[in-house]
């Protein structure tokens, strides 16, 4: 066993970039002022730092105006905000989303369905995780307030055709939201090319700090605040501004923007290498998600005859950190709703393993996994009553 840990769970969270940390540091106990306290210098220093971070983020997203960026505590909040505000406060009571959304979309919708008379259409996806544009079109009614479809799925990495879907919504005068947690910083995410009215993101997915995210709100679009009680964020999101984290999110956005062009093809190649290597050495594995339309840094496979959590546990002994859509990792009985939605039988889905990379991932990490993973799987398969190897 070597000592160097291999972190391949960047779709869950990423390491705070040391440059980002350096940018944040002065705002912890040197410039700690409240950005709303504009009548003394320290408050203005904080305010300015926040606004220039907002500019960095607006830049990454190609937003027309920095005012389109509202800072939140995370993408989960951003998602809840859009869902709740549009469906609880408006007159239209129908929402359309997809079967592979993050729980931060599905759960608020379920709750509103159950307790507040909202109607929801959950669009199915095909075996690659794609939503049918025609089905979206057919599902929109006069009652539809919002369509919310994620940009890329966090488990299988499929990138959905947001532009096409947003255009369909807009043709019928319906607002469109996209959860872009898994694409921001990984592939170019330009709000005007995507055409979404709202876009959610979380800083810790692209080497920024945890507990900070944003909601892009297209100019001219009304959205009732979700968290009220202060003038922060131009009255859109109350609460004392988290300056160090906001500064960090801005810096992370800037760094991600600079890296994307060289990183995306590099990680795509590493993912390919990992898949080829594993597939050559392990029988009966399959790859999930769209082979082409996908984020560059993610590989999701199903391994027959084993259960995901056991694989994670064995890999952990080697310092290899990955994730699984197995039910055993969530303490429930059903495996990941995403894997079921793309049509995998539960017994197959239980054997899923997700590898997700970042700019820190090295070719040697991939090689090491190719070396270790087949042994681990072989040991578990030898214990398995469903494997006759």
């Amino acid at each position, binding site marked *: 066993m070597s000592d160097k840990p291999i972190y391949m769970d960047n779709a869950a969270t990423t390491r705070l970039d040391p440059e980002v940390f350096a940018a944040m540091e002065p705002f912890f106990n040197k410039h700690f002022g409240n950005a709303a306290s504009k009548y003394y210098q320290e408050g203005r220093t904080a305010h300015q730092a926040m606004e220039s971070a907002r500019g960095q983020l607006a830049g990454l997203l190609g937003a027309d105006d920095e005012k389109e960026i509202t800072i939140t505590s995370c993408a989960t909040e951003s998602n809840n905000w859009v869902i709740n505000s549009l469906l609880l406060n408006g007159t239209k009571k129908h929402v359309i989303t997809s079967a592979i959304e993050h729980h931060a979309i599905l759960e608020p919708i379920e709750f509103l369905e159950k307790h507040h008379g909202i109607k929801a259409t959950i669009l199915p996806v095909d075996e690659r995780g794609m939503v049918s544009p025609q089905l979206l079109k057919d599902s929109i009614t006069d009652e539809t307030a919002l369509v919310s479809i994620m940009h890329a799925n966090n488990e299988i990495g499929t990138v959905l055709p947001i532009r096409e879907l947003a255009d369909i919504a807009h043709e019928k005068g319906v607002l469109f939201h996209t959860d872009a947690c898994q694409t921001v910083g990984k592939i170019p995410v330009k709000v005007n090319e995507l055409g979404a009215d709202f876009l959610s993101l979380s800083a810790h997915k692209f080497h920024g700090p945890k507990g900070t995210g944003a909601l892009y709100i297209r100019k001219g679009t009304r959205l009732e605040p979700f968290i009220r009680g202060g003038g922060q964020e131009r009255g859109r999101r109350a609460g004392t501004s988290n300056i160090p984290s906001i500064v960090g999110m801005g810096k992370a956005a800037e760094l991600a923007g600079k890296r994307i062009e060289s990183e995306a093809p590099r990680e795509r190649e590493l993912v390919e290498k990992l898949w080829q290597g594993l597939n050559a050495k392990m029988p009966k594995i399959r790859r999930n998600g769209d082979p082409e339309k996908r984020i560059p840094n993610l590989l999701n496979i199903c391994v027959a*005859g*084993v*259960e995901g*959590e*056991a694989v994670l*546990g*064995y890999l952990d*002994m080697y310092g290899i950190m990955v994730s699984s859509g*197995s*039910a*055993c*990792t969530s*303490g429930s*009985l059903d*495996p990941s709703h995403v894997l079921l939605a793309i049509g995998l*039988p*539960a*017994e197959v889905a*239980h054997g899923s393993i997700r590898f997700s990379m970042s700019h820190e991932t090295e070719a040697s990490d991939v090689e090491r996994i190719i070396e270790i993973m087949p042994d681990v799987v072989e040991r578990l398969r*030898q*214990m*398995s*009553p*469903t*494997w006759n190897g």
Partner: protein
Amino acid sequence: MDLYSDIVMDHFKNPRNVGAVEKPDGVGEVGNPTCGDMMTITIKVKDEHLSEIKFKTLGCGAAIATSSMMTELAQGKSIEEGMSLTRDMVAEALGGLPPEKMHCSNLAADGLHAAIKDYQEKLGK
């Protein structure tokens, strides 16, 4: 902090009695691959005692460790003692299990009981 106790980790990493006994006197199959956990227990019985027990388990670390521990606990015991082995006894011998894993920790005792019943039924006919 570990998710699992040291004993669980030891049995997960180095499970005892993996496999299937030859010409088993009883076979217990419990669980369901759809639920992510499945176990096959095979036993040899000599003088109404469990002379050999092996397991094959598809499941999480807890499922594997409980299977392994169960085979050790039951080894050499009378079939009555085997029938009265509970999941709590297995969990206790393992130094405890996380609450969300109590579900699969059922399997091992259930599997043993199923294997013993299978043996008894075969005898009975």
